[in-house]
């Protein structure tokens, strides 16, 4: 067939089989915002010596100046550097937790969707339980039990334990629809093993949802940790977005004229979440366009 058509194709104007769609607006914005924040958060700390969380390093409650870009707070910490480290830690936590969650949710989701049977039923029950149980109260109990000794690691592990469920559900339903499609049956009939089918056939369709789920879980992790920190139940000695706010609230930042202490993390948090969200939906759109809106 190619012999007959090849010379004609070379002469005719080339029509690509599928066009790579441009990155849509959301994706652009998302990448930009997240990129800027992540870069600053990870690069800047390399230039800082010392521990930004050390109290009493500087004079308290200094206003904005060249030395202290956002001033200092009531604990004698430089707000700007504390914030930078806080962003970094929050992001690190988010990414780490999300990695763990995505791993688990993908494994559970794909296997449940594909293998089916009693295995699937158990997986569903497990997943749905974890989804319906409101995470926050559980976290409160756990941190109350551990009282004061909540290490960052503990918080992270708990977040992983509760964060995988939602995405597992999504991935499973994707896997279900894929299972019934023609090419899977083809692979099965041609003797491919279950593992091969899962990795080579189903995976490429599911990975977009994984990516979206990954970003969403980052949001979830940072959000939940910060929520805990704001009410003082996480390890507030470690600078995170949540703990800044906790200390600011504790010292009544608004009353003593230190608005920046509380406004700066709020603005940063909003920007970061917005960026991550745009990244997530932007990628979703992009992937949908690539598939030709199947």
């Amino acid at each position, binding site marked *: 067939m190619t012999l007959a058509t090849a010379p004609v194709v070379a002469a005719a104007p080339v029509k690509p089989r599928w066009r790579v769609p441009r990155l849509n607006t959301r994706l652009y914005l998302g990448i930009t915002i997240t990129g800027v924040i992540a870069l600053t958060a990870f690069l800047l700390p390399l230039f800082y010596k010392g521990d930004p969380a050390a109290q009493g390093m500087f004079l308290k409650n200094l206003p904005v100046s060249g030395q202290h870009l956002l001033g200092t707070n009531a604990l004698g910490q430089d707000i700007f550097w504390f914030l930078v480290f806080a962003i970094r830690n929050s992001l690190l936590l988010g990414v780490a937790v999300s990695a763990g969650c995505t791993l688990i949710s993908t494994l559970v989701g794909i296997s449940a969707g594909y293998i089916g049977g009693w295995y699937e039923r158990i997986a569903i029950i497990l997943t749905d339980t974890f989804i319906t149980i409101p995470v926050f109260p559980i976290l409160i109990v756990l941190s109350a039990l551990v009282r004061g000794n909540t290490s960052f690691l503990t918080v992270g592990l708990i977040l992983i334990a509760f964060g995988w469920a939602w995405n597992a559900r999504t991935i499973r339903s994707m896997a279900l629809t894929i299972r019934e499609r023609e090419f899977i049956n083809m692979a099965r009939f041609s003797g491919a093993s279950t593992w091969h089918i899962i990795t080579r056939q189903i995976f490429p369709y599911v990975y977009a949802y994984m990516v979206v789920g990954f970003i969403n879980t980052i949001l979830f992790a940072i959000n939940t940790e910060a929520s805990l920190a704001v009410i003082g139940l996480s390890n507030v000695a470690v600078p995170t977005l949540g703990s800044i706010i906790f200390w600011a609230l504790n010292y009544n930042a608004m009353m003593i004229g230190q608005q920046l202490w509380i406004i700066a993390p709020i603005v940063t948090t909003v920007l970061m979440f917005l960026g991550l969200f745009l990244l*997530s939906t932007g990628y979703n759109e992009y992937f*949908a366009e690539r598939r030709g809106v199947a």
Partner: protein
Amino acid sequence: MIQLKNVVAEYTTKRGRMKAVDGVDLVIPDGVIVGIAGESGCGKSTLMKVLYGDLGFPLSLASGSVDYGFTNDKGQPVTDANVQREWFRHVSIIPQSSMSSLNPVIRIREQFVDFPATSKDKKATLAKVREFVQRIGLPPESIDAYPHQLSGGMRQRIMVALATFLEPEVILADEPTTALDVVVQKEILLLLLELQEKMRNTIIFVSHDMGVHYQLTHQMLIMYAGKAVEHGPTEEIFRAPLHPYTLLLTSALPTIGDDRARQGLPGSPPSLWDPPKGCRFAPRCPLATEKCRTEEPPLVEVRPGHSSACHHIDRIPQLQADLAKAPSLDDLDEARLLAQVQENLRREHEIDATADAAPPSEVDRPEIPSEVADTVAPAGGER
């Protein structure tokens, strides 16, 4: 009668503009059932949209007009410009799939009275409807149900009822039986025939199924690549067609008791982005000559009431005879069969290479907004 005067309908897309219907000029008399047949992408669905007046971005009437031959309530003649106001009053439509055309969460009776043609006097309308559905074989309570409570055949009857109970002059049916099983299909076809006989309206019927056309229609319009290539009485179209495309279409139909090998029609229609000069069927036509490739044949009346667009109408009877001489399947030995298949494939590649066919179904696909493709799984769980 409906007069289509040089109708050109085009789609405006990112790639440019494409004429799905490229100059259709014909007259449809009153009180007949006309069938439109042709391959995917020939423009029949677009023509239906033009006839119904369903023109909206990206479809537009680039030139030409449609005159419906009757006047509206204000006394003005109904044309493509104002036919939208007559929807379901004087012109109605029977869509393809009955299940997806009825709102699943609202009772059927509501759907009879929620449009301008009927919403003025609901009680009277409903009484009329109840009486009407009985005439077509449905119990009067059926309209009190929800769509999912009725069977597929009953729902399609409801669609027929919707389209006919106000006794419109023109009914457009876009493949109304394609999604049904043959038993129900026959019922619906008989129903349409019956109604048409009583009401004497014009039914314009699109279908892939030539068998359905034969049973139902009085006249047929054959379309190819955006052009009307033949228009005439159904019986003649099947028995003595005046266009090679029609002949090849009808001779591909299997018949019980006739085991001659069928000759398919290799290749695919030309891309409408860059239609060939001359006759558009020439690349695939066994009778094509140089004249066909350069000069486009006009649609002319060859016999009374029967027009065709072909330069070599006189050679068609010979082609017909040749096809009739096809050997019986039993007579074909394997080697010959294989040779036949290989020959068809070769011809197909040849035609594809020269015609550079684009997927014709691109035309009729509605624009799908990108946000719709995947609803983002709400990260509601992740807050």
